[in-house]
């Protein structure tokens, strides 16, 4: 439990750092970083799921719903909250290791890591697109 708490806190700090780097101002910074914690905790809680792609997928769904709600409340574009909140999950180290293996000439690991990285990016994107499509559908329906 305490490890979850520290881990969430660290995710919060990393999102805060990226909010500053991406020029997000004021309270939006805090709200976006809270989204990052939500995504990261959902990811960690899904530890026992059969596939890590499912973990990534569920985590983005959670943080995308949060981002959509915050965007309505704060009257800011969804991307602001979504990009910041997604940062602990995004496969940055994966793509770095992919190219590291490519340069080292390790073709097997290059392909394996590369495909896995693309799959993670795909899982994140499908989560985001699913939520935004559902939001759009419900808006059309209520019109």
């Amino acid at each position, binding site marked *: 439990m305490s490890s979850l708490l520290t881990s969430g806190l*660290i995710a919060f700090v*990393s999102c805060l750092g*990226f909010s500053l*780097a991406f020029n997000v101002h004021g309270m*939006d910074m805090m709200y976006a970083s809270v989204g990052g914690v939500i995504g990261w905790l959902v990811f960690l809680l899904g530890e026992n799921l059969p596939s890590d792609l499912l973990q990534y997928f569920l985590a983005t769904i959670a943080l995308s719903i949060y981002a959509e709600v915050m965007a309505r409340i704060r009257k800011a574009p969804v991307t602001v909250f979504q990009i*910041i909140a997604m940062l602990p999950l995004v*496969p940055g180290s994966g793509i770095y290791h992919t190219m*590291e293996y*490519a340069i080292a000439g390790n073709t097997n690991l290059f392909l394996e890591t590369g495909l896995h*990285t693309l799959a993670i990016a795909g899982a994140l994107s499908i989560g985001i697109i699913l939520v935004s499509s559902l939001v759009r559908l419900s808006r059309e329906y209520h019109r």
Partner: protein
Amino acid sequence: MNQEDVLNAAIEVGSRLLENGAEISRVEQSMERMILAYGAPACDVFAIPTSIMVSITTEGAAPQTRIKRIYERETNLGKVSRLNDLSRRICATLPTAGQIKDELARIDTSRDYRLSIQILAATLISASFALLFNGSWIDAGVAVVCGACLKIVVLGMSRLHTNRFFINVVGSALTTAIAFLTARLIPIVQIDKVIIGTLMNLVPGVAITTSMQDIIAGDLIAGQAKLVEALMTATAIALGTGSALALLRLL
């Protein structure tokens, strides 16, 4: 406003959105909405990360087209938010060309975070990711130093308009060198945690995710362009780290 002014205003707003890292679909939709709001019967917008093309067609008149080339892109969500606001207000209140120009000038000159805050951001990112990758608190401390040095070098080189690829090679080589030398002095430092934590400042994680998003949403060319960009950035980083490690191990 005549059609020419509408076209120019739309492309000015659209190109700024693209330059500050808005999604392709947002750029295209905002431009289309603006042009239609001013009463144009039909328009086509095509945006990819490196250029925008817009064409307005009116029956009985020659179609009007503009192309704008985009050279530099960064992620500036504060500006994306303000530009998004502006494009909504334009659709709602239909301001004149002069008013739009003033608003855009205000957004262009709005200040980003100070240098010291940007360096602080880099240290926060480096330290927290070193910890997220299961590094120790000592690793996080070393990552703070690496992050600050990295940011100073990157900011300095971008101010001199150095090529992006080269900046990433030098930045990641520098990070590796600092981590390596500290690990020589303090053997309990885990060099790989420090390096990957600090490199999270440069690594194109968001780019590769948005590129997949574009491809799934049907913006095929934009998605491919971003994918290549992300791969090139990652190559530069891996190249910098790899060559620095190879050289330092000779010491």
